[in-house]
């Protein structure tokens, strides 16, 4: 297998999203909504059957609503399966997200279920009104018969299969225990890849929304992902940093954002930042260049001389990400730090003074830039230099580091750059010659 001259990845996979046929958009959300509706209607019916016969007119609309909701779920999923115990309710193996206000009602319903040894029921075909009435009859005070899978004596159920309470309770316990255990038993090394992939996916979605002018996704998933990255960086540092070599020419911004974040987190770890600080740094790094998503790629990738207007747009780069992040209209402390860091990441540390030979000799610091912005500046520059771009080849790590420490040194905080050199120098890029076992860095 070979690579092309642009340094494109071997065996490049089309990362663009493919539509899955036959799956309806928003199915999960709809299921949640309909599921909650069925619970709320069941509560109302079970409560009122204590006072009224199921044939009473007051039940006409609720039964119709319940029938419609259940049959809609059956039409989409092929069945309606309710499992309920305490405040835990599953519909078609998905736990319902219950809001606090509804918990009392849910508990009433499940207590009534439990009192009749009912844990839920299944429906595999569209259900009729009479059958629902016969099910609700189970909870009437006039019913003295015990409940079987097909209902009670004299009011047998055809399509509804009742689940016994103890069995369903055990099923729910097992489902919850399995979900918990699968979270606890994750292989952390391979999980690192999954987190990386999820972050790429998240950033892709974010950029798509940005470019289409839609509402920006929440940053909560990003918070979780960065938390995971910080944890993995602590546990699997070498593997973690090693994955920053992966990139894609076509989706440069995605991989650049994620790789910059990862480099920044490892760098931050070496600098002794606390967990909370690494998280702030990671979030800032992940979004440091998000404003680029709204810039015309023609300008970003242009090989020839830029026009005056294009140059003006380029000069405003430090503000692009600020503009983008402000679209979320939420300026809490975390976002403030992100905005400042992304802005300062594009500000040169100092003004270079060159000697007669053109060597950078003395640097005059401009302003006191923040730590996060300075770290991100270094991490992003390193990643950018080691990435192939439409207008140049990628540089090898040694060349990139050399450039950063010489011609470009005025751009970076010298103290941080020194530490960064040591961090990156520790990561080996070739096998040692035979006989040499150890390389030490002071």
């Amino acid at each position, binding site marked *: 297998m070979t690579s092309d001259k642009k340094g494109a990845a071997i065996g490049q996979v089309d*990362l663009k999203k493919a539509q899955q046929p036959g799956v309806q958009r928003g199915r999960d959300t709809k299921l949640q909504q309909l599921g909650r509706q069925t619970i709320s209607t069941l509560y109302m019916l079970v409560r009122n059957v204590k006072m009224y016969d199921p044939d009473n007119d007051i039940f006409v609309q609720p039964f119709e609503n319940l029938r419609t909701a259940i049959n809609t779920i059956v039409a989409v999923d092929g069945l309606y399966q309710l499992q309920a115990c305490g405040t835990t309710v599953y519909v078609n193996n998905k736990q319902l997200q219950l809001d606090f206000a509804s918990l009392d009602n849910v508990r009433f319903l499940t207590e009534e279920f439990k009192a009749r040894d009912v844990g839920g029921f299944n429906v595999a075909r569209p259900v009729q009104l009479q059958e629902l009435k016969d099910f609700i009859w189970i909870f009437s005070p006039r019913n003295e018969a015990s409940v079987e899978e097909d209902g009670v004596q004299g009011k047998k159920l055809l399509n509804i299969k009742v689940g016994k309470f103890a069995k369903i309770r055990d099923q729910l316990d097992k489902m919850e225990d399995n979900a918990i255990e699968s979270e606890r038993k994750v292989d952390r090394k391979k999980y690192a890849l999954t987190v990386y992939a999820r972050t790429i996916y998240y950033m892709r979605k974010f950029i798509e929304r940005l470019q289409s002018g839609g509402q920006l996704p929440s940053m909560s998933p990003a918070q979780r992902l960065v938390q995971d990255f910080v944890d993995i960086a602590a546990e699997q540092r070498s593997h973690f940093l090693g994955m920053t070599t992966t990139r894609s020419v076509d989706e440069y911004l995605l991989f650049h954002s994620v790789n910059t974040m990862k480099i920044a987190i490892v760098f931050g770890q070496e600098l002794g930042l606390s967990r909370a600080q690494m998280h702030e740094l990671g979030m800032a790094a992940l979004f440091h260049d998000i404003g680029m998503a709204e810039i015309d790629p023609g300008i970003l990738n242009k090989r020839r001389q830029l026009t005056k207007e294009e140059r003006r747009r380029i000069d405003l780069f430090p503000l692009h990400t*600020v503009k983008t992040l402000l679209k979320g209209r939420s300026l809490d402390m975390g976002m403030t730090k992100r905005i400042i860091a992304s802005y300062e990441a594009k500000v040169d540390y100092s003004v270079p003074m060159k000697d007669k030979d053109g060597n950078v000799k003395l640097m005059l610091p401009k302003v006191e830039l923040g730590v996060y912005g300075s770290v991100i500046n270094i991490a992003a520059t390193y990643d950018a230099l080691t990435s192939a771009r439409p207008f140049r080849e990628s540089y090898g790590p040694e060349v990139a580091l050399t450039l950063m420490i010489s011609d470009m040194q005025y751009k970076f905080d010298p103290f941080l750059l020194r530490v960064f050199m040591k961090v990156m120098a520790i990561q080996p890029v*070739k096998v040692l010659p035979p006989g040499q076992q150890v390389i030490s860095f002071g």
Partner: protein
Amino acid sequence: MVAEGTSAGVDKNKALADEARPVFERLRKGLKNVQLYRHNTERYPEYLDPFVKGLQELLARHSMISLKLDAVAYKLGQHVVFEDDGREANLIYPLWQAGIRLLIFKNGVTADEILRFFLLCFGASEAERKNRGEDIITQLWKAELECIEYVVVEGFKVVADEELEDVEVEVEKVVAYLYRQLQSNSDDYLRFARVNSEDLDMQLDGVDQMRGSVIQGVTATPGDKARIQQMLGREEARQLSKMVVVLFQLLELDTTEENFEDVAEAFVQLLDALLLSENFAAIQQIRERFHHSGQKPNAKQATRDLVQRCELRFVGRMGESQRVQAIGNTLNSGIAKDPDGVRNYLYALGVDAIPSLIDMLETLQLLPNRRLVCDVLAAIGGAYVETFAQRLTHPSSNLVKDMIYVIDKVNPPNKFQIFATVLEHPNAILRLETLAVIGRSGGDECFDYIARVIKQHPDAQMRSQAARMLPNFPADKGAGLLLGIIVSEAFEKASDSEKKALFAAVVMMHAPQTDQFLRDIFDQKSGMFAKKRVDDMKLLAIGGLEAAPSIPGLQMLAQVAQDLKRHNKDVCEAARAAAINVKAKLLGS
């Protein structure tokens, strides 16, 4: 937590649940105290101490307790250990809603960890959570609780209407791509490679080992790390001011109609952050910068227009009632640390904020802060005296006093006419204080009000106070009024204190009529028929001279004290005692 598939498992969970239940009841009691005495944060450890000790003892016996969560309970297996279905400060639901399904407490957990954990769950940090844009899981994660773990069960989604299965498919594609990259063996790739798929399966114990190399090294020294923390500490205080710089750059260089709302809203949120940190100086700087930016000669007109619109929005939002009230809350926490800053802020609000400022004033408790706000009202409310006057009948005496202060400072032409309405206020102290304000002025209009009070006011205290005000007015007016009252029939019906007040006023008048009046009283001899009345008048005169010490008064008292032929023994003794007191007062002893 033991699996409940077996009866042994069921028994063990039940036994542990029975042990744990009373311990967690102590948590409920402790948190009740936290809720009741929310501001006593230094006593939180004390409130939770019984629970902490109980939990630590439990963990010492069992080494670890794993509690499953449902929406309202902590459970061991199916056995409920702790339930919370309260609407406020719920310990369980926020965790469950965030996706936490298992809590693990380990032996060795410290009291500090337990306290921090439950206060986080309790919502004690809700405001901070919102301020930082963090959810509870992020806060728990940042808390780095070593002996308290939690397991979150949640599917990964970016947007709400995504299908979990779709997301997993897409993520798996990326994973496959990454894995393929790591398996690559091309020369180009080896230049960059730091890890390959074999490395993923290797165990690393304390060293970095890849592809046959063993590397050891030191990157940042402890000194470096300390320096970084110092830098971060300094930066914390500069975040907001840096944000101001960034926002103004954006406003001046790269704001159009398209993103104007985002920028304007950002300034407002920055305002709220600065208000929260009581940084009024920074708010003032922002206003000055707005002004400066809007005047820049080389700025395009469109930019200047946007800057001015932004400024108007900013100042408008400054005056919204919730922000004004927030300043009130700040002022109620103590004397204003930056009174000039607060003053500048309130000045900037303009006349539209007068009702909000008065509402805020009603809530203020400390006098210096009330005065600060009153000064602002007086400065901006010159044309709105009627608004202040309407509050003079308010039941809050503090507010009425404040309005009097403000109106006095504004000094409208009909000031005393407005004040006169307070002379009938139900609150006696307010009536007296307003009377004092009127009485101090000394003008003709005020004399009329004073005279009316002396003659007609139903409250004796008011009449006495009015009498004491008369020396502030020209003697020809005051003396005539005073003496007319003393010789009238109404004087006989007056209380002792009122009579004394009138005579004190006579003495303080220092007018020829009043001085002669006093001499006339002391010249009378106690006759057989009017002895009591004459002596009473002399005693009242002595009381008046004592109440208003002066040299001539002292001389008069001394003469009376020695004149046993003209005055009876009681009068002489009273005069002697009064003379001693007056002398002492005059000599300052």
